[in-house]
């Protein structure tokens, strides 16, 4: 099972929830950091890194001797990553989206696959919890290409271990967030009951509902703000799977890099209950069978 922890608003507690859930999970679990622009999961799980690799994407390289400057590549490219005019051919690798179209369409086979560095993928172990993360190169504009490669490695790792994965997704509701959640089995939306939290939560609900995955909400800093979020969840039939109270002591523990589920038995119990509810949400038939057994 792959659980994606997402939100609309940044700073609501995705990484907090992901790290805590992974720590109290039952069975094999992999903590996956797909917030490749600002990965934070390692700051809490503190994994021993076993290996890492640079991730690249394919960009066109020109063998100018073969090029006839016909311009078919430039005509096709939607991103202006390759440009042909007069007797000039020039590429802008940082604009390339890696679609392979120019390489495929060139009638002279003058284009071949070059590389652009996206960032780094690393993996390891944090006690009983597996760890996998992507880290975007500074100056690399797009996160989805790196995210796809981290997800490919995730699939390999899950095929080997047969366990579950908890994905720490980036904030927001545009392409990076959608990429992080679209191949998961269940989506958890973490929010805070403030006006910003509620507004962005509604955007997230609109963005992710079409993906057709079971979704549940986690209200962090419950007690702060107002009750608009509860009304929205009720209206949309979205189950609230956990509430983490607004408590300065929790904020200070987080500010010291503590995993919240380890701060007290009360907090641990919240995450254990959340874990069980996620399982029920993802596989409702299985829990019904268990109840009747």
């Amino acid at each position, binding site marked *: 099972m792959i659980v994606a922890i997402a939100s*609309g*608003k*940044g*700073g*609501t507690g995705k*990484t907090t929830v992901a790290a805590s859930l992974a720590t109290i999970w039952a069975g094999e679990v992999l903590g996956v950091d797909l917030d490749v*622009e*600002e990965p*934070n999961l390692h*700051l*809490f799980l503190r994994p021993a890194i076993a290996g890492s690799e640079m991730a690249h994407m394919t960009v066109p390289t020109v063998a100018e001797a073969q090029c006839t400057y016909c311009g078919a590549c430039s005509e*096709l490219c*939607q*991103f202006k990553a390759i440009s042909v005019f007069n007797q000039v051919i020039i590429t802008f690798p940082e604009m390339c*989206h*890696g*679609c*392979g*179209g120019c390489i*495929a*369409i060139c009638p002279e086979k003058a284009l071949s696959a070059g590389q652009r560095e996206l960032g780094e993928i690393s993996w390891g172990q944090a006690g009983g919890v597996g760890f996998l993360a992507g880290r*975007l190169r*500074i*100056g690399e*504009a*797009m*996160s989805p290409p790196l995210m796809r490669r981290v997800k490919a490695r995730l699939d390999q790792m899950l095929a080997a271990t047969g366990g579950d994965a908890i994905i720490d997704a*980036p*904030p*927001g*509701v*545009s*392409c*990076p967030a*959608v990429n992080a959640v*679209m191949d998961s089995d269940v989506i958890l939306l973490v929010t805070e009951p*403030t*006006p*910003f939290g509620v*507004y*962005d939560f509604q*955007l*997230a609900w*609109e*963005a*992710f509902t*079409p*993906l057709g995955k079971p979704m549940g909400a986690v209200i962090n800093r419950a007690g*702060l*703000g*107002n009750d608009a979020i509860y009304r929205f969840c009720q209206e949309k039939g979205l189950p609230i799977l956990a509430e983490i109270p607004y408590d*300065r002591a929790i*904020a*200070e523990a*987080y*500010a*010291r*890099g503590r995993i919240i589920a380890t701060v007290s038995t009360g907090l641990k119990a919240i995450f254990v209950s959340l874990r069980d509810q996620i399982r029920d949400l993802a596989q409702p038939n299985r829990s019904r069978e268990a109840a009747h057994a």
Partner: protein
Amino acid sequence: MREIIIISGKGGTGKTSLTGAFAHLAADKIICDLDVDAPDLHLLLQPTKERLEEFYVGHEAEIDAEKCDGCGLCATMCQFGAIRENGAGFAVDPVRCEGCKVCVAFCPAAAIRFPERHCGHWYVSATRFGPLVHAQLFPGAENSGRLVMVLKQQARELAKARGVDLVLCDGAPGIGCPVISSLSGAHLAVAVTEPTPSGRHDLERVAALCRHFQTALAVIINKYDLNPDETARIEVFCHDESYPVLAQLPHDPLVTTAMIQGLVVTELPESDFSRELGQAWSRIEELAGLGR
């Protein structure tokens, strides 16, 4: 004319709350919400929309089921896993479609259309603090930074037309396309951080981004009292890299109180927080060369 952008790296540090307060404190300005993915500034500013524009960017592929002969070449060539077989042939998943046109170009039956993609709206509005240029991407849409550039261009033109010397922008979290676009042409970036491991980590990355694009950077440490040791570490980092620390703001529930009332924190009765914030704004004006 000066363009100042409030960024953070990490989400939730207080960019929007502080930008709203700066919009109140600043004399003449055009306000701009560049967080087009999850915009929140309008919740504090209650804009009256005066102009609405459609935003189209890029294209998406659509397979005409009647012309499709089911050869599947499109699905083989698509690098984004966007084309799958359904009962009747092949179909493009708009969520995954990158708009690259490869399937359109190679389809032997010319069965694939390539319409423009409607990605959102943008607005020019009036608020109690001045004009606001803002937008809303449709949830799930691509956020390449193009809409950010459109908003910046509009804000600059408005500033020029009205003889206003400041464009004040609320930025997006992260370091990707929208943030990169936000930094383009900015005279000063102000990073709002918090004294947590994530806050410092993400500040270092967004600072490296500003260096990469040669944008001047200053820092505000918000919620500094949550971890004075971490605050001290951030101060050392800023000192070593020559980023001015404009203020250390205490963690104050007043920020949320103001938000719930649809106000900015400087509209509430004066507090330590609002005083420190006022001083930070004066320092920003100085740094940006606003000569006020």
